[in-house]
């Protein structure tokens, strides 16, 4: 090809292609920046936090913040919230004015995940709500945080997704239910998602319930305004787990909520990937011929 069109012309064509490609990307970016960059909204751009369920949950702000995270407590009132960093020995409590919890990143080597829990007691009902948030901190794994008994009736994930990863549709994840520190066997757990899925599952002999995250994300047209978190190819939705236990005239209700995302191949085409990989292989195949000038045996 080079010999046909001439070296200089070939170079200029390549330059033109590169310039056009960069131009396309920039044009695409300018078009998408207003709707694709949710985190570029100004700090004053406060929007009312809407609950997607009647079940008590902690809803994190959609707006990206530095050094702190804000969560709104919905469906329940509480005076204070307890924060457990990965190193649970350094837990602390924060006031909850207007049902808003502002968790500051206290830095240091406290680990990434922080557990937020709030408890309310009315008459004979003790209700707790909990969730987790992530700060990009160095520090220990969140195992002590998860294994710590944080309320009388406690439901917590056995494992949390690693940084850059999520609970995803089509995956199964285990959650442990404990009452007074002991695994709660054969207890019903209600699993509800923002996409209107509702399931009741039971804990096993170890107090573990396996949650099959459903692929229940709405079709594209309906999903346009769903949380895209800046990543056009990944949607996310909330879920909440609820477990109840009655003992000695008291009712305990515990909720854990977090989010899950679309499945691994959402808006991805494996066949296309294999096709391009094969194209790459075919392009490189002439290198395997022994007759190429300059090659060594």
């Amino acid at each position, binding site marked *: 090809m080079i010999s046909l069109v001439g070296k200089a012309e070939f170079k200029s064509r390549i330059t033109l292609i590169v310039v056009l490609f960069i131009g*396309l*990307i*920039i044009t*695409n*970016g*300018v078009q*998408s*920046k207003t709707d*694709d*960059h949710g*985190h*570029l909204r*100004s700090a004053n751009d406060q929007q009312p936090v809407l609950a997607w369920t009647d079940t008590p949950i902690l809803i994190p702000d959609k707006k*990206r913040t530095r050094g702190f995270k804000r969560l709104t407590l919905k469906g329940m009132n509480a005076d204070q919230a307890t924060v457990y960093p990965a190193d649970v020995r350094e837990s602390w409590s924060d006031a909850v004015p207007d049902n808003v919890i502002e968790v500051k990143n206290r830095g240091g080597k406290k*680990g*990434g995940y922080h557990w937020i829990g709030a408890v309310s007691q009315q008459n004979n009902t003790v209700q707790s709500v909990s969730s987790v948030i992530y700060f*990009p901190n*160095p*520090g*220990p*794994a969140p*195992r002590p945080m998860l294994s710590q008994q944080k309320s009388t009736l406690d439901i917590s994930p056995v*494992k*949390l997704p*690693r*940084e*850059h*990863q999520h609970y995803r549709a089509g995956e199964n994840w285990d959650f442990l239910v404990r009452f007074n520190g002991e695994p709660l066997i054969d207890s019903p757990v209600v699993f509800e998602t923002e996409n209107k899925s509702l399931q009741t599952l039971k804990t096993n002999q170890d107090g573990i319930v396996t949650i099959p995250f459903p692929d229940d994300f709405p079709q594209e047209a309906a999903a346009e305004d769903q949380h895209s978190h*800046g990543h*056009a*190819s990944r949607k996310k939705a909330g879920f909440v787990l609820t477990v109840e236990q009655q003992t000695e005239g008291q009712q305990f209700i515990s909720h854990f909520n977090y989010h899950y995302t679309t499945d*691994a*191949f959402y*808006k*991805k*085409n*494996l066949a*296309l*990937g*294999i*096709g*391009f*990989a*094969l*194209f*790459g*292989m*075919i*392009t*490189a*195949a002439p*290198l*395997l*011929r*022994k007759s*190429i000038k*300059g*090659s*060594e*045996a």
Partner: protein
Amino acid sequence: MKSISMTLGRFRLSVQLITLVTLLYGATWMGHYLSDMVSNALPALSCAYDPVASDYCILIPTQHQLNHRVGEAIVQMQGFAFKMLLPLFFTFINFFILFVILNKAFCGWICPLGTIQELIYRLGRKLGRPLHSLKPYQTGKVRPIKWLMLVGLVMALPLMAGLGVTPHETGDAFCEVCPSRVITSMAAGTTEELAVGTSSFTDTVFGAIRAFLVGFIIIAALAVRQPFCRICPMLSLHALFRRLSLTRLVKVQNDHCEKCGICTKACPMDIPEIWTEHGSKAFNEDCILCGRCAEYCPQDSVISIKTGPFTVFESSRDYYKKRVKLEKPNGSKPAAKNRIRKTTKTQEHKA
């Protein structure tokens, strides 16, 4: 029983295989959260998209910080505050702690993609495929690409994404095209990174380039040594600071060098300067400190690898004689004993 002698090459291969398995599967037996705890520390192409990796490379936080912190800070017009640059600074500090000691040896000894390419190349020798070494003028043409990758994909595009000029997908532009993302995650049993995104034009273009590169590299590595390493931004990032590290390649002038050139033949990066130059010029920006040039130099103490005042390894005639019996400079196995003896004598004579 045939005795197995430990050469620098065999030691390096052992280190490469151990780190390959540890980096790709380490979280399986060392803990689910391992990469969260040691993340950002290792300047090697070990990918965050690998579900059981034990660590991931510095290029991910570098791009994210340029995108989310620096770019957004400028957009919000709240000043180009020091606190916005601080996380980026700490990322590089992590990088430097290891880099100051080991220099570019990460590329030649630890990088999973480097090891995989080297293993494919060895397979190519077994299959009798030809070796295509790059000529000096070809090397000169390829070298700028790694700088373009660093400046364009690791720095400029993530920064522009933060400014809102380019799409969000360009916020980690290098990761979007990085073949290590596909190869290491496939080694961990998932094909999702090979799949091409179809959510936007940019997503599709990046996915197509990534898949193409994977296919190209797998085949090219059978006949060309370290094809991706030559354009890898990690190499240019290392090259930027290579003079600051304690570990370095040292070559002293020797009259025998002019007619020899075995060092360049042994070099997996086809660096002509290790043959034609001496002093600081011999320690080229493409060097991955694998030590093969020192192993295959038939002259005593001409090429050496040093850490501070200590010599880690230096060339010697006796070592060279043993080494060529095990493997030719180009990586293939010697055909027959008699032929090796003859070759060795000829090369010694030339040297």
